[in-house]
């Protein structure tokens, strides 16, 4: 839309915070016949001098079935009583035009493992209200059993009900805080 759009090769410095109304942290996991998805709406994310950090409060997890929500919070899954947060801290971000790769440490259920998110970056660009925004849409796939989320149940045909590979997605709209102070 902006005629001033230019190819970006780097991640901007300064402090950026997620506009959580226009951001989303979600997950997808294949089960027996389809893909099951949900999101964690209570989260914060920021980009501070090139380091992207995010924390999601697992108690806010939303899925379409109430009983499943309770099961996901239980010790068999996230164990929200003992591990209320899922977090990510980047170690290295590389951007090439629209594509972005974010290497960092992902912590789920108190276990930290390296993870690399890949996706798209847009901006920074100035919105209609004068705020400078940077968009990042990225995802990664992890093996949930590496984070001690081992629940499964064999189906009558012997196949496991739930796959181990879980896709984690972050759609972030990051707003420059410097613009906010002016």
């Amino acid at each position, binding site marked *: 839309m902006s005629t001033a759009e230019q190819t970006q090769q780097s991640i901007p410095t300064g402090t950026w915070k997620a506009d959580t109304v226009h951001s989303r942290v979600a997950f997808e996991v294949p089960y027996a016949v389809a893909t099951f998805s949900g999101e964690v709406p209570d989260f914060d994310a920021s980009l501070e001098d090139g380091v992207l950090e995010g924390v999601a409060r697992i108690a806010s997890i939303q899925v379409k079935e*109430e*009983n499943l929500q*309770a099961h996901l*919070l*239980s*010790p*068999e899954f996230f164990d929200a*009583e003992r591990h209320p947060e899922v977090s990510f801290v980047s170690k290295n971000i590389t951007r090439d035009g629209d594509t972005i790769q974010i290497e960092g440490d992902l912590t789920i259920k108190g276990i930290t493992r390296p993870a690399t998110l890949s996706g798209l970056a847009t901006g920074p660009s100035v919105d209609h209200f004068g705020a400078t925004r940077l968009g990042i849409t990225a995802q990664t796939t992890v093996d949930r059993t590496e984070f001690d989320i081992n629940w499964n149940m064999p189906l009558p045909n012997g196949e496991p009900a739930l796959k181990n590979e879980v896709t984690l997605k972050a759609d972030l709209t990051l707003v420059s805080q410097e613009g906010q102070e002016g």
Partner: protein
Amino acid sequence: MRVLAISGSLRADSNNTGLLRALREEAPAGIDVELWNGLKAIPPYDADDDVVPGPADVEAFRELVREVDAVFFATPEYNSSIPGQLKNALDWGSRPLATNSFRNKPVAVISSSAGAFGGVWAAAELRKVLGAMGARVTEAELAVGHAAEKFDEHGRLADEDVRQGLREALATLVAEVPTAVAA
């Protein structure tokens, strides 16, 4: 610290209830093991009766579980699974799922049977059910085969290895109780 002991058997001379009596004897100072005798009074689960408040015996069970710090189960094995009345009580106890009194409650499961395998399949089923309810299922494990032979003529557990197994299972359970609650 209060540990509620639940036997899956209603029989007066039950080996599983005998194991829980021995557990009470073996409990170290500061750990109070209470045997639950309310299982038989729990009515059959009927969603039409699942209202607030529920049946009095069910509410008493839920309240007791809420009050104690941990729950220790000993179950027999009926047809490769747990006794129906035990499952029925847990079905009541699991309601409503998101806020049920077993939620995050540390639990231990042991089993015994007349045969050689000691009820391992029933124990596995019980752990599955408790996990689905949101309980904190601990690693505690003890399967007592040929159970009747382990007791003397007065019905007292006479096997030191089994007593040691009970002490270890209880220690594993107690270790999962948050220290703030234990204080």
